[in-house]
C-alpha cells in the first residue's frame, strides 16, 4: 500500500522531537451497503475509504494525526505535526529499527471475496429474506433487509521494526420486520454477521433468521405491557451476552482499568463474579464476526481468560495502557479506522457454558422475566450502571412461560449483576453486534449460554 522506505522516513520524522515510539497505520477499505425495503432495492452504495494514521508516544503521552493525503509531502507533514505536539524533551530513542516484514497466520479462511460476488447474487439472497418475512403473517407490513460487506486492507508498521499487512473480510445481513394492526407498530430484528465473504450470506439459514425476525415483531404486537419491579431475570443465549459485554466487558478493558476508572482495577486474583462465571475474550474463534488475525497494533489475536470460576484473571490490554499498567499487550488493540487512535477493546466475548439445561432453568423459576432476545443498551462507565431493552420478553410463572411482554427495560449495576448470576446454561451461542467506544464502532461478538440473575430491576409501563 505504501513502500517501506517511505514508511521508515515517516516513522523517523515522527520521532524528531524526542518521541520514543512511532507507528503508521495504513487502511484501504472497500465497503458495500445494500438496503431492500418496500420489496425493492432502495439503496445500493459502495466506496473506498483510504487513509493513514500516525501515532507518537513519549512515555505516557500519545499524539495521533490522520490524513488521506498519502503523498510523501503529506505524510511527512502529518508526522511532523504530530511530533510538534510532543512536548519535546529530546530524551527518547531517535532512530527507528529497520522494518522487517512479518507474515500473518490466516486464522479465518475466506472462500468468496465480497468484490467477487456479483451484486445481483447478493440481492437474490436479500429478496429471499424479504419474502420469508412478508409471507410470515398478514400483520407484517414492512421488511427492511440490510446487507453490508467489506474488505479492509491494513498495513501496520512501527519504530520497533514491525511491518505487517493483513486483510479483514466481513459480511453481515440484518433483517428488520415491522408488524402492525393498523394503530400500533412493533419491530423484530435479527442481524447475523461473520468474518467471512459471500459464502456466509449465501449459506445463511434464512428460514431461521428471517422467520425469527418476523415472529418477534408479530409476538410483540400482541404482548402485554411489562410489569415494573425487581424480579429474577432469565437471559437467553447469543445476543443476550450484550448485558455482560456492556456491564463487565468494558470495565475489563485497559482503557478504563489503567485509569483506575473500573470497578475491576487492582483486583486480579479476587472474586468478582458468581462462582458459575467464566468470562473469555477470544479473537481467534474461526470466522466469527469479532475475530482478527492481528490487532490494530499488529499483535497476534489470542484467547484471553478474563474471569475464571468467579475469580478475576486478567484484562484486555493495548500498548499505551500497558505502559501505564506495567503489563504486556494482550492483542486487544482495535480501532474503527485510520481516523481513530487504537485502544483496548473486545473481540468475541462470552460467558463459558455451564451445566444447566435451558428447560431446567425456566422450570426452576417461580416468578420472573424471560428475555429471549435482548436489544441494545448502554452503561455509565464511571458507575457501572446499565440499562438494556429486551426485544422479546415473557412472563415466567410457576416454572412456565406464561405470556409475552413488551416495553421491558433492565436496569442495574454491572459489578453487582455478575455476582448475582445463579444459573448458567449449557447452550453457549454468539451474537453479532457493533460496539461503540473511544476508538470508534467495531464489529464484536457477544455471547453466553442462558443465564439467570437472581434479581434485576425491570422498568415497564405498568408502574
Amino acid at each position: 500500500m505504501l513502500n517501506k522506505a517511505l514508511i521508515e522516513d515517516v516513522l523517523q520524522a515522527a520521532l524528531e522531537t524526542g518521541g520514543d515510539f512511532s507507528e503508521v497505520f495504513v487502511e484501504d477499505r472497500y465497503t458495500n451497503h445494500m438496503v431492500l425495503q418496500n420489496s425493492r432495492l432502495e439503496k445500493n452504495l459502495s466506496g473506498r475509504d483510504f487513509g493513514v494514521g500516525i501515532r507518537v508516544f513519549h512515555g505516557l503521552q500519545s499524539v495521533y494525526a490522520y490524513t488521506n493525503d498519502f503523498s510523501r509531502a503529506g505524510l511527512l507533514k502529518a508526522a511532523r505535526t504530530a511530533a510538534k505536539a510532543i512536548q519535546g524533551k529530546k530524551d527518547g530513542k531517535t532512530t527507528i529499527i529497520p522494518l522487517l516484514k512479518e507474515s500473518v497466520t490466516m486464522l479465518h479462511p475466506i472462500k468468496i471475496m465480497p468484490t467477487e460476488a456479483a451484486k445481483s447474487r447478493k440481492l437474490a439472497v436479500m429478496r429471499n429474506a424479504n419474502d420469508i418475512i412478508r409471507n410470515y403473517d398478514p400483520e407484517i407490513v414492512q421488511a427492511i433487509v440490510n446487507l453490508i460487506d467489506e474488505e479492509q486492507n491494513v498495513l501496520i508498521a512501527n519504530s520497533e521494526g514491525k511491518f505487517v499487512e493483513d486483510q479483514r473480510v466481513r459480511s453481515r445481513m440484518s433483517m428488520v420486520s415491522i408488524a402492525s394492526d393498523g394503530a400500533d407498530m412493533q419491530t423484530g430484528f435479527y442481524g447475523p454477521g461473520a468474518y467471512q465473504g459471500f459464502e456466509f450470506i449465501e449459506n445463511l439459514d434464512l428460514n431461521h433468521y428471517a422467520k425469527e425476525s418476523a415472529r418477534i415483531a408479530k409476538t410483540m404486537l400482541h404482548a402485554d405491557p411489562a410489569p415494573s419491579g425487581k424480579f429474577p431475570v432469565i437471559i437467553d443465549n447469543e445476543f443476550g451476552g450484550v448485558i455482560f459485554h456492556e456491564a463487565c466487558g468494558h470495565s475489563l478493558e485497559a482503557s478504563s482499568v489503567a485509569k483506575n476508572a473500573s470497578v475491576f482495577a487492582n483486583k486480579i486474583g479476587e472474586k468478582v463474579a458468581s462462582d458459575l462465571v467464566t468470562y473469555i475474550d477470544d479473537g481467534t474463534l474461526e470466522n466469527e464476526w469479532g475475530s482478527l488475525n492481528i490487532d490494530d497494533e499488529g499483535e497476534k489475536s489470542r484467547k484471553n481468560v478474563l474471569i475464571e470460576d468467579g475469580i478475576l484473571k486478567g484484562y484486555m490490554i493495548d500498548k499505551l495502557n500497558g505502559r501505564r499498567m506495567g503489563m504486556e499487550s494482550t492483542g486487544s488493540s482495535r480501532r474503527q479506522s485510520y481516523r481513530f487512535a487504537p485502544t483496548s477493546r473486545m473481540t468475541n466475548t462470552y460467558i463459558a457454558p455451564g451445566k444447566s439445561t435451558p428447560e431446567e432453568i425456566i422450570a426452576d423459576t417461580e416468578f420472573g422475566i424471560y428475555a429471549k432476545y435482548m436489544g441494545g443498551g448502554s452503561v455509565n462507565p464511571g458507575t457501572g450502571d446499565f440499562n438494556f431493552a429486551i426485544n422479546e420478553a415473557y412472563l415466567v410463572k410457576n416454572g412456565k412461560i406464561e405470556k409475552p411482554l413488551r416495553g421491558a427495560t433492565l436496569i442495574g449495576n454491572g459489578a453487582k449483576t455478575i455476582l448475582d448470576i445463579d444459573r448458567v446454561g449449557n447452550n453457549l451461542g454468539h451474537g453479532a453486534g457493533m460496539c461503540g467506544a473511544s476508538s470508534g464502532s467495531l464489529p464484536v461478538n457477544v455471547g453466553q449460554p442462558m443465564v439467570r440473575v437472581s434479581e434485576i430491576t425491570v422498568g415497564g409501563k405498568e408502574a
Partner: protein
Amino acid sequence: MSIEQLKERLFAEGKNVGFTDLELYYEKKESLTIGLYEGEVDKYDFSDVQGASVRGLYNGKTGYAYTEKFDEDSVEFLLKNAVENAELIENEPEELFTEKAEYEEIQFYSPELDTVKPEEMIQFLKQVEEKILSYDPRVKKVTTSQMQNQKFEKGLFHDKGLELKEANNFLLFYVSILVQENDELKSGFTFRITKDFKELDADAIVKEVVEQGLSMLGERNYPNKNYPVVLKNEAAASLLSTFTSSFSAQAVQDNRSRLKGKVGEKIASDIVNLVDNPFLPAGIQSATFDSEGVPTRKLNIVEEGNLQTYFHNLKTAKKDGVDTTGHAHRGSYRGSVEVSPSNFYIEPADQSYEQLYEGLEEGIIITGLAGLHSGADPISGDFSLAADGYYVKNGKIVGPTKQMTVAGNFFEVLQDIEEIGSDLTFSPMSFNGYIGSPTLKIKGLAVTVD
C-alpha cells in the same frame, strides 16, 4: 489530485460512459481534539481529511459511489461503481436540482476560532480540572475533559453548472466527573458548543457540573406510580431527537411513522410549536443550502399543536405532490440523500425551570435519560428508559431518586405537554439534525424507582 481536477475529469468521462446528469459532493474536515486526564494531556488528535461522492443518472436510474483516495484511478473507480449500483437499484430516480436559486447570505464560519492555540486549549482544560477538584471534597475525579476545534467545508457541483460551497466551524467542550459520598458513586457532565473561545466561562462550567453531580447524592426510593413529570431541557431534547424521524416524509412514505396522514391534524397540545431553523448562528446544522443544493428556509413544523408539514427532499416532495422543504440530508459522502431536519426545536415559552416544578404537589423531575437508542421504538413511539432525577413534594425538590425508569409513548407525551419553559437547549448527541427543547411539564408518566 484536487477536488476541482477530480470534478472536471469526472464530468468529462462520465458523459462518455453514459451518465446524463452528474453531481459531485465533497466534504473536507480539519480538527484538533485535546483531552486532559489528571493534569496531563491524554489525547491529542489532529485530522485533515476529505472525501467525495458521485451521484448520477445512468439509463434513468440513480447511481452512487464514493472515495477517499484521490488519484489517477479515482475517476474510473467512481464511475464503474456508480454504474454497477445504478444498474441494480429499483427506486424511482432521484432528481438533481439544477435550477438557479437565491440563497441566504450568511457566514457561519467564525475566523476567531482559527486563532485559538493548542496551548490555550490545554490551559483551559487544566484550569477547569483544578477548579473542579478543589470545589468540593466529594469530587472523586474528572473522568473526561476534552476540547475539539473543528472546521468543515462541504460543496456540491453539477455538470449542468451549479457550484455551491459552505464552511462552518465550532468549538466543542465536554467534561464529566465522578462524585462520591460513603459508598454512593454518581456522575455529572456538561458540555458547551460555541464559536467564541472567550465565551467559555470556566467558573460557570465548574459550578454547573459539580453541583449537578452532587445533587445526585443521597438517593432514595419513592413509590412506583404515575407521576406528573418535569422533563428538563436536555432530557426533553434527547427524547425529541429519538423520535425526530417520525417527522420525515421518507419515514411516512415507508410506513415507518405514526404521523402518516396527520398533516393538518392536532398532534400536540395547543401550546406546542416545533420550529426548524437552518439559520441559527450557533447551530451545528446551520446551512444555506441542503444536500441537494436547494435553498434552506425557516419553517414551522408544528403550530399550536397542529402538524403543518413533514420534512421533504426533492424525491419525497414529488411523491406527495408538494414542494421540497429543503431538508435533503447526507450523513456524509458515504451515504445517500436522505431527509433530516437542520436545527429543530420546541419553541421556548416564558416559565423558568423552577416555576415549572413549584406548582407540583407531588412529582418527578427528569434531568437525564439513558438508553434512548435501545429502550425507545422510533416507530411506535413507545419508550422505557433509565432516568436520573429528583422527587418533588409540595413544590420543592426533596432529593434524587434511586435507579429510576420512566415509560410512556412519545406521541402521548406531545399531547400531554402542560407547560413549556424558557430554557431552550440542544442535545449534542443526535445524529439526525441538531435537536433542542426547553424544559417541559408533562401531565403524567409511569415511573419506577428501584
